[in-house]
């Protein structure tokens, strides 16, 4: 329940975790990327989400990344740290530690792989709220977890003390609207898939969205989407959204996210870096396809002109 605990809103960018070719964290690129997206208008950042390849970052590394992010972002920018896992004891501990390391809250999705039921989900988040006692940004991500929390269940979880926000990444737009209706008065509802529907989501009452590919590839132009929606600039908003959709559709077919995003960032001279196993970096032909998508959007010329 967000009874004044947090004031999260706007375009929160889920940042990449750039690795070196041999899999070490590239701290220089990591902080450069955070500084860059903030300078381009991001209202906050999410560290160690799916975009940050959370699955291959150890808890100790995550805490280190949280500290680095706070250092790069300064004290006023909201930072949400991804602390998901299957073991609820560890998730609670890491969430608490995340806030001690400088985060404003913890991004947590249902346990993946162990496909659990509603009663078990309620127990999971109840334990998290009771034991961590830090602001929790709930994350509904059916594609990756195999669990789609329906809006009524999310509303029951939203009533828990420390659950203050939600990233709704169910693809169904009506489900996003139903979610806003079911618990928008209890918690701050954010949309996922902003490249496809960020403008419409804000118009329908989302407090913002958690963006990823479009923000880190297109920079200022895509990040502005939230402000355009808030300002009611329909035509400009529609134009930007059409371009983020084209980007999203073009990239979706190439490699595995976020290896495709990182390749695009690198081609544009942005600090993307490399992936960590089990993900592989794009091969030559995939990279050529990415180049084509960027070129089709005129992004390579913009880069060359700088």
């Amino acid at each position, binding site marked *: 329940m967000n009874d004044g605990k947090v004031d999260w809103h706007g375009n929160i960018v889920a940042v990449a975790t750039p690795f070196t070719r041999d899999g070490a964290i590239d701290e220089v690129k990591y902080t450069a990327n955070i500084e860059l997206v903030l300078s381009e208008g991001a209202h906050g950042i999410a560290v160690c989400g*799916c975009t940050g*390849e959370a*699955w*291959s970052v150890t808890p100790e590394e995550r805490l280190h990344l949280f500290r680095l992010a706070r250092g790069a972002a300064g004290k006023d920018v909201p930072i949400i740290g991804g602390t998901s896992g*299957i*073991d*609820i*004891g560890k998730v609670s501990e890491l969430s608490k530690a995340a806030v001690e390391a400088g985060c404003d809250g913890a991004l947590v999705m249902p*346990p*993946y*792989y*162990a*496909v*659990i*039921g509603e*009663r*078990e989900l309620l*127990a*999971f988040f109840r*334990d998290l709220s009771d034991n961590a006692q830090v602001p929790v940004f709930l994350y509904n991500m059916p*594609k*990756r*977890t*195999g669990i789609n929390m329906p809006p009524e269940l999310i509303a029951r979880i939203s009533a828990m003390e420390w659950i203050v926000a939600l990233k709704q990444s169910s693809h169904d737009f009506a489900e996003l609207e139903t979610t806003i209706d079911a618990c928008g008065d209890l918690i701050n509802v954010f949309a996922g898939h902003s490249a496809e529907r960020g403008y419409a989501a804000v118009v329908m009452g989302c407090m913002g969205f958690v963006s990823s590919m479009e923000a880190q590839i297109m920079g200022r132009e895509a990040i502005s989407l939230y402000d355009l929606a808030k300002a009611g600039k329909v035509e400009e908003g529609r134009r930007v959204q059409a371009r983020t959709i084209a980007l999203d559709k073009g990239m979706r077919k190439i*490699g*595995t*996210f976020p290896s495709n995003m990182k390749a695009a960032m690198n081609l544009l001279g942005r600090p993307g870096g490399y992936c*960590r*196993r*089990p*993900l*592989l970096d794009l091969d030559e032909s995939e990279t050529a396809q990415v180049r084509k998508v960027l070129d089709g959007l005129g992004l390579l010329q913009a880069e060359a002109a700088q």
Partner: protein
Amino acid sequence: MNDGKVSWGGNFPAVVTPFTADGEIDEKKFVANIELLLSEGAHGVVVSGSNGESWALKGPERLALFRLARKVAGKEATVIGGTGSIPTGDVAELTQAARDTGIDGAMVMPPYYCGASRREVVAHFRAISDAASFPILVYNSPKSTGVDIVADFAAELAEIDWVVAIKQSTLDFTVLEQTVAACGDRISVFTGHSAKRGLASVLAGAVGFVSSLDSHVLGREGISLFERSVAGDYDAARAVQMRTLALDRGMAGLGSGPSVMKAAMNMLGRPGGFPRRPLLEASAAEKEGIRRVLDGLGLFSQAHHAA
């Protein structure tokens, strides 16, 4: 490629990991369950699979269970240990360590959660094979991993040196048949969901089952399905299959898999124990439903007679 590395076959129950009410591993029940299943005709066991709540087990706990299982099973029965997770390096390391526990092979599913592509999954298995030089049973469970290893994908994995077998748990029976056709000559194809299709799988050319509810709840009767099928005793096999199917359908929707199975085992006096979080013990209402299913199959009177 199974160029004589292993000769696995038969009914391998994927054993539960019994926990105490406060989440400790209940070694006594773990051992008792393996002894019971082997005495009832199982040809091997799979430790720390999805049935064994592998997601809730740390690496060192898994290794301790492998050692225990090896000790209980003796040299005759096959013991396969689940070593899968997401980071390729971690899986390679745990698989190497599994080799040193004396078990016969490792079961590895593709990395889940990260949405890995086919190219990445192949590279994952190749790295594990190269690092561990230890027989690997590939576990295809699209429902829990989000990755589906269809027939030609399985055939590509079958080319990897230490990939010797696959547990095909896609629900699509045609894909199971195609998998046997595509790589049954190079690796041993086991089927999952034997409670639904064990007999038909044997007819389609599967060399074994990695079984679950059917073995743990129906015991000797459920386990016999494989041998009856192989022996061509089709009337008897069909009768058993209808009962495992009724069990499987009855239990569906009553709660999370291992919780339901453990509750049923406990009701029958078998060593089930408790699940570990994030799973919860079956609720009173769920237990009532489970009891009805077991009663409908006449299992309480059997348990009574046996006792």
